[in-house]
């Protein structure tokens, strides 16, 4: 009985590997690789640097939710958000000083406040 279960699990694992590989290459999200539609210059900066933690739509992930006014509630003054993006923050937010220009940081902050 256990032998059959083991065999079944191993067959399932082989199928799962096949699905895993296919999905890595076939499952491209809508708009991937582009700069999004209707967004300003901050959109691309966001997609390239922030989306992986804060979610493609700013809905949150490893990093907190930004969309729906969450980031504006947390930082009513945009300069404070600029400081967090520039210097980083304990709890996992990395510093983007030197990785993004001041202009890019301003653009991405402006963008996050429209999500």
């Amino acid at each position, binding site marked *: 009985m*256990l*032998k059959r*279960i*083991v065999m079944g*699990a*191993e067959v*399932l*694992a082989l199928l*799962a*590997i096949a699905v*895993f590989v296919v*999905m*890595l290459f076939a*499952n*491209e*999200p809508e708009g*991937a*690789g582009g700069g999004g539609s209707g967004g300003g210059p901050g959109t691309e900066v966001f*997609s390239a640097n*922030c*989306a*992986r*933690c*804060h*979610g*493609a739509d700013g*809905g*949150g*992930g*490893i*990093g*907190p*939710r930004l969309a729906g006014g969450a980031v504006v509630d947390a930082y009513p003054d945009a300069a404070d958000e600029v400081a967090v993006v520039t210097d980083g*923050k304990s*709890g*996992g*937010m*990395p510093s983007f000083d030197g990785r993004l220009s001041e202009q890019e940081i301003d653009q991405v902050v402006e963008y996050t406040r429209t999500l």
Partner: protein
Amino acid sequence: MTAPATTAPRPMSVRLLGLLLAGAAVSVALGVYGKVHDPTGEQPYTLFFTGTINLKVWFATVAILLAALQLLLAARLYGKISIPKKSPPWLGDAHRLTGTLAFLVSLPVAYHCLWALGFQSTDTRVVLHSLFGCFFYGVFTVKVLSVRLHGLPDWLLPAVGGVTFAALVGLWTTSSLWFITSRPAGIPLL
């Protein structure tokens, strides 16, 4: 002149090299995909968790618990521990099953890491996690092939099994443990 009728078995060193190359190929392929692929940043599945990240944290935790159980079963199989006193006949099957289940549970985690986040280098923890991830599946490949291939040194399987478990511990420590203990304020645990 006729060719010899029998083919000499491949020397052990060739088999070992083949195993190593297979594992390295898997690790490098995952690393290259993670680096080249445009991370989507999406959260494609959550089940009953608040987000994909939360799901990954707990799936990875289940994987490491199953792997720890597999390690204990292996220790009993090799006679390194003597609980239970009489080794039950299903021990080997249970060992295989726990390993297979740990691998299955790890796949949705790895998929999201590669597809949505990619190979990152934002800080030391993240670099280590990316490296452990690629290394883990490479050494897991070596382990699975070591079980299937014959004529390998006796020490190889337990050694590779130990390294696989150590890689999983590194992977879990730099992700799930970090999330459980140091996640940013406002991010739920489940």
